[in-house]
């Protein structure tokens, strides 16, 4: 009886440990994605917005001025 209980506890603890590991890895992956990620179709509207500002002349780059 005690053996079975011990086994059951071990299985539950093992499952919890694995679940925590999966959760933690997934959480970090999502956080990293929030922090740093590629620009693709999902962010097309944002990129298009920035491009429009450049093309319309609304945004100018920083520049280096050549003295006369």
């Amino acid at each position, binding site marked *: 009886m005690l053996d079975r209980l011990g086994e059951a506890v071990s299985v539950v603890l093992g499952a919890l440990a694995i679940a925590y*590991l999966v959760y*933690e*890895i997934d959480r*970090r*992956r999502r*956080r*990293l*994605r*929030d*922090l*740093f*990620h*590629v*620009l*693709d*179709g999902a*962010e*097309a*509207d*944002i*990129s*298009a*917005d*920035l*491009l429009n*500002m*450049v093309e319309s002349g*609304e*945004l*100018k*780059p*920083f*520049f*280096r*001025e*050549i*003295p006369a």
Partner: protein
Amino acid sequence: MTVRIAGAPANSGEVLGSAADQPPAETLPATTHRNGESSSISRFRIFIVDSGWNSAARRVLHENFALIRDLQKDDPIYVLDREKSVEFMRRHGSRIGRDPIIAVHDMQALNKGGTTGFHGFRLSLGLLRTPQHALMGLQAFARFLVEHRHSADLEADIRARLRREGFSGAIEIAMHHEAREIGE
């Protein structure tokens, strides 16, 4: 010939370009930018969106902007002033609180496939809550830009890097080591 580093044009750079925030004028060897035109070798276009939250990330960006600009002198940097940044955030509300955001457009990819496929990458610096994390994030970002500016497949490089980060994070968790902090 020397060139004088100028501040932002009148319609940009308020956020990073106020008198107090501007680094002192200095001289550098003549390079590729003249009268605001980027050189033909520009691989990237860099955008900085900063609506002005009083944050550690914002301060770190201000303090290191001159260096970032010098490291990326082959690529034009566009800084949205506070007004434009706020308008931008109003149009893209999900980004509020993540700024300063540095978005980098890969002109090579953009010219090939437009904005529907891969066309660059971005760093949401505002998610990094401490000055140390923000500085490390900015440095890693600058390093990535310099190291990959001639990459034949930038998307593959970025995804490989993200996989590596995920894998090393998993090992750290499994080994019960001090977790790699990314701004928490």
